[in-house]
């Protein structure tokens, strides 16, 4: 029952945010601030995670492919794994951890100290100022962060492979992207905009409905991370199937 009530409240919250987002006045200043906070400040973390994934993929896949006599497929395996799945999902999970916790805790703290009520009492729509800007920033930044993660993963994947067995970047790229086309890159990258929607929406919702002082703030931050990560993974299952059907 509580689960259904949570979904109902989330739906009402989404509707209020949507209605506020498409009607003026638009909060461009706050949107740019959030683009910087969510995008640029997540970049080092996403890049580091992408680089680590590239190295791990290279080491693990090499061992398996050598065992089955398909070592020449290594660049292709790394490229397809990174751009189709690993880059998007790792970016989604990293951002849901960093940004989800940040948004959840910030808005929850504002809620329990009546700062959100003060915004509303100042005749400013908090759904427009606080929620719409953060959600939109998440939607816009996730695909860009994914491209950064892909780039770092492929670069480090190549370096890891080159250290084990010399291969030039040109050869790696030629071999890796042979047979790949835009439908291998674009839909998986753009699906992270949906991850952004999930992360922004759930984190803002959890933050703005908080009750109960410091304990409530902690709970909101934790729930924002746990729920947005969970829904990113579940959303990925649906989106992967959708992409396979639409771009066979």
């Amino acid at each position: 029952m509580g689960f259904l009530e949570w979904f109902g409240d989330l739906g009402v919250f989404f509707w209020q945010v949507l209605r506020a987002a498409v009607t003026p006045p638009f909060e461009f200043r706050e949107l740019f601030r959030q683009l910087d906070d969510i995008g640029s400040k997540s970049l080092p973390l996403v890049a580091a995670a992408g680089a680590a994934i590239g190295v791990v993929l290279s080491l693990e896949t090499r061992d398996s492919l050598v065992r089955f006599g398909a070592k020449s497929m290594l660049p292709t395996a790394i490229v397809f794994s990174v751009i189709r799945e690993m880059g998007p999902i790792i970016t989604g999970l990293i951002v849901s951890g960093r940004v989800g916790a940040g948004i959840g805790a910030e808005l929850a703290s504002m809620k329990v100290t009546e700062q959100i009520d003060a915004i509303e009492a100042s005749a400013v729509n908090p759904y427009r100022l606080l929620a719409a800007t953060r959600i939109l920033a998440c939607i816009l930044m996730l695909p860009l962060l994914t491209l950064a993660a892909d780039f770092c993963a492929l670069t480090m994947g190549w370096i890891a492979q080159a250290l084990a067995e010399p291969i030039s970047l040109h050869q790696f790229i030629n071999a890796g992207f042979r047979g790949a086309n835009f439908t291998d890159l674009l839909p998986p990258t753009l699906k992270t905009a949906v991850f952004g929607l999930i992360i922004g929406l759930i984190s803002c919702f959890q933050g703005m409905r908080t009750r109960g002082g410091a304990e409530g703030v902690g709970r909101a931050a934790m729930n924002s991370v746990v729920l947005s990560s969970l829904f990113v993974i579940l959303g990925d299952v649906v989106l992967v199937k959708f992409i396979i059907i639409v771009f066979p």
Partner: protein
Amino acid sequence: MHITDSVAIEQERAEEDGSEAVVAVENLHKSFGSRKVLNGIRLAVSRSETLAVLGRSGTGKSVLLKLIIGLQKPDSGSIRIHGQNIAGMALDPLGEIRKRMGFLFQQAALYDSLTVGQNVAFPLQHHKKEISRSERGDRVRELLSEVGMEGDLEKMPSEISGGMQKRVGLARALALEPDILLLDEPTAGLDPISAAEIDELILRLEAGHHMASIVVTHDLHSAKAIADRLILLNEGNAVIEGTFEQLQESDDPFVKAFLKES
């Protein structure tokens, strides 16, 4: 002319000469679960008048104030601000009415990531886009000097005392030159000297701005100092409404007990 326009103009005229209520609450009910907080409250406040809402802790005084500014929704009843019923009104049209209202929160509710100056500038930035940055800065300094905080423009809210935070909250509430001021426990948690200073400040601001004010408090001395009329709440009902002298003359046992203990 549309009939509703003429009614609104009539209302404005009546408000101008002080004969019509700027805030009129009728038969207001509010419950939280099974707990009834307000049970058919009525009140009216005219221009340049100050009404103090008194009562024990937990009798719904702050809830009443939040209902009047639309931060909470009533179960039933009407809340008319300048003749418009705001009960159940959507957020954006309600925002137009809120521009004419100022609200001081019990804990001041300053934005903790903004400086004192930025806090006061916040309503101006959002609703007075036609004024230049320097004009906005002048207006912020003017508001802060009105509450005696002109030297603390660049400080963060965490760097100033509770009494100073309330002063800044008051300056922020006055930024859009409201004609209705709602004050939630303006002297709560302050030492007697700071409380008296806040009372004096409120009196000065009310005299200067000719606003209709509703002050929620459990501080009888403060209410006596700043209000024209008082209303005493108990268990969701208004026990008595009148001047301080009328409260003193009342035979109601609750009124007597409240005055004795305060």
